[in-house]
């Protein structure tokens, strides 16, 4: 009986501890930098190693699959053919990767801001926190509120960075938002993430002419995303009492992203608050 009570008491203390931790973290916005920094610094190398191992295993698995079906063929011909095919496949993969990187480079050259390319280590699509961890951090000039882009358009913003890694809040995250402009009319609005794969465009009055498929770009008014970056395309329009409910499909297919471009900004003075919405 005493043991059972002690166990219940320990669980209660554990819950109180977690609640206090959560309250402190929630109050601090992006969380306690020291604690998060410590955790990310601790897990960063493990994440990078696992991602590198995954990439290696993927290559090995593809090679294995490729070889498996060809056992019955003539060995000499098979080897020759195989080498040529592997070479071709490798080149095709390189071409694909090159194309992706060329698109990023083209975007980087077009941007009038300094930017750095980064690789996504972990992607998280949960309703309450859509985010990703990238393999570049403060060492490369990445600080909170840096805008993150891909060749197609806006990806999100940096919420937290350590020396070698950074956390990106995706534009589809439930607490994410950005100032936008409708390309056809120049009307301003605010898009917000919904925690799903779609975005919601708010504050567009009913008298403004909005058409399906219309492109929506950043307005630059939020102080995070530079103006003119593609955010998405209008997918559905619903009538509301004061404003309309406009649903957007993001321009970038976030779950297929491998590389991103981070727009660098001057680091804020310690203690300066974030201008964007936080989780």
């Amino acid at each position, binding site marked *: 009986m005493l043991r059972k009570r002690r*166990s*219940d008491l*320990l*669980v209660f203390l*554990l*819950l109180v501890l*977690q*609640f*206090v*931790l*959560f*309250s*402190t*973290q*929630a*109050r601090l916005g992006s*969380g*306690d930098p020291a*604690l*998060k920094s410590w*955790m*990310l610094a601790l*897990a960063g190398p*493990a*994440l990078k190693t*696992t*991602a590198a191992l*995954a*990439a290696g295993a*993927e290559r090995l698995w593809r090679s294995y699959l490729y070889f498996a079906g060809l056992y019955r063929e003539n060995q000499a011909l098979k080897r020759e053919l195989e080498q040529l095919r592997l070479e071709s496949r490798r080149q095709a993969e390189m071409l694909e990767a090159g194309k992706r990187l060329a698109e990023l480079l083209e975007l980087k050259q077009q941007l009038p801001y300094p930017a750095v390319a980064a690789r*996504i*280590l*972990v*992607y*998280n*699509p*949960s*309703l*309450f*926190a859509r*985010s*990703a*961890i990238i393999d570049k951090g403060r060492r490369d000039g990445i600080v909170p509120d840096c805008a993150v882009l891909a060749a197609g358009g806006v990806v999100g913003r940096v*919420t*937290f960075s350590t020396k070698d890694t950074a*956390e990106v*809040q995706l534009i589809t995250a*439930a*607490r994410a938002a950005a100032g936008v402009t409708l390309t056809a009319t120049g009307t301003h609005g605010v898009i917000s993430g*919904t*925690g*799903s*794969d*779609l975005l*919601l465009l708010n504050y567009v009055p009913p008298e403004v002419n909005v058409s399906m498929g219309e492109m929506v770009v950043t307005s630059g008014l939020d102080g995070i995303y530079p103006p003119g970056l593609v955010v998405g395309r209008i997918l559905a329009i619903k009538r509301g009492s004061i404003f309309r409910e406009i*649903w957007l499909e993001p321009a970038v297919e976030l*779950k*297929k992203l491998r590389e991103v471009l981070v727009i660098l900004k001057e680091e804020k003075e310690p203690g300066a608050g974030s201008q964007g919405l936080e*989780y």
Partner: protein
Amino acid sequence: MFKAIIALLGILIFQVLSSFWLPSLLHLDLALIATVYFALRDAKLHAALFGSAAGLLEDFLSGAPLGLNGFAKALVGYLVATFNRRLYSEAIASQLIILGLSFLLNLALVWLLLSSVGRPVSLNPAARTQLMIQAGATMLGGLLVGLALSESFANKVREITRRPGQR
């Protein structure tokens, strides 16, 4: 302890590998599934401790405030461990009910915690669809984990792997 560390490492590796290969798999709340099956087989304190660690790992990987899922999963683990003898059997319906209730409880706790600090998440139609997908994926994934851990499955594996002479 060893099993818990392996399970936590499994969650971390699952998250990284799924990000690479099959992002759709990330709809499955593996931390919740692991917490529920720990709670069904272990003491209340162990279940709460495991749920707490798995939730913290999830918070860290997802960018949520630390302690959000830590609190929710610790409580889910504790409650499932408390009622497991009354609810659990190897029947699919029983497992579906436990997984479904755990998912709902976890969701409600996370939503309440976020609302309590003035950050409620709007449950608009798109978010509801997303939740349905997550619930479905988690329950299906949980059933598969339950099947793999079940005694009847273990017996079948033993039977298949037994040498012909031993049968």
